[in-house]
């Protein structure tokens, strides 16, 4: 292994724990509602306006707006003005957490992979 293990372990913890503590509580509450989760999943496919979301779900525009407000407060969704419309999209911070998760997963897995490549396999009975 190249690099001191203490430092690597420290990195792993710092990647994960602040995210858990800071973001997840509000995110979980926000996604606990099935309609809000449907809105969130729709936005995962691409940015949309309130009218476009309401057209794809059996929900009124005012209700969509209310759900979007909760998702925004939880840092799951952000909005930008495009001309006279407001367009909603997934907040990059939400995706950053998924990236952190898989980043750590692959760092650990490739360390184990390197060990396997460089050491002969154990005999299987």
């Amino acid at each position, binding site marked *: *292994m190249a690099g001191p*293990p203490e430092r*690597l*372990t420290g990195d*792993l*913890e710092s990647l*994960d724990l602040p995210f*858990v503590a800071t973001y*997840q509580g509000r*995110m*979980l509450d926000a*996604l*606990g509602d099935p309609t809000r*989760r449907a809105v*969130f*999943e729709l936005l*995962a496919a691409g940015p949309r306006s309130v009218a476009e979301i309401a057209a794809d779900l059996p929900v009124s525009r005012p209700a969509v707006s209310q759900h979007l407000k909760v998702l925004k407060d939880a840092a*799951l969704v952000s909005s930008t003005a495009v001309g006279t419309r407001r367009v909603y999209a*997934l907040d*990059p911070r*939400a*995706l950053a*957490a*998924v*990236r952190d*998760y*898989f*980043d*750590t*997963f*692959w*760092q*650990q*897995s*490739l*360390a*184990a*992979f*390197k*060990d*396997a*490549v*460089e050491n002969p*396999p154990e005999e299987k009975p």
Partner: protein
Amino acid sequence: MTSAETDPGTAVRTSVVVGASPEHAFDVFTAGLDRWWIRSHHLLPDDLKRVTVEPRAGGAIREESVTGQTCTWGRVLTWDPPGTFVFAWLIGSDWQVPDPDAAGSRVTVTFTPVADGTRVDLVHDRLDAHGAGWEKVRDGVGSDGGWPGLLREYAKTV
């Protein structure tokens, strides 16, 4: 080979240099997947017996539990030894058995000869396919198969 480009905003990259030929590294990554897979990572409720890769494009990546159940969680997209191995990753960050038609992300692994062995570059992209898995990530963090288990496994390898 799938030709769509990688969006860096929805990708993670990891590299490692291993002291072996590309042929051996490719073989351990695929045929030898079970030798290095972190045992706490499995989808079926019972303990993991093995993970396997069918060595062809379109082949299934599966796990088998100690009780004989199996589940497919990946699909080989490119099988081009010893240089390139690409597969669809169907597991969300919740580590639940995926639907057969689940939206997947993509893992591209390339093996490049370097002076002291082989550089293995792994790109896991299209991660926005797993965007709605937050609550399950939280559950995983607190369970034995989640972060505590991972960190224990990691500590054993260093």
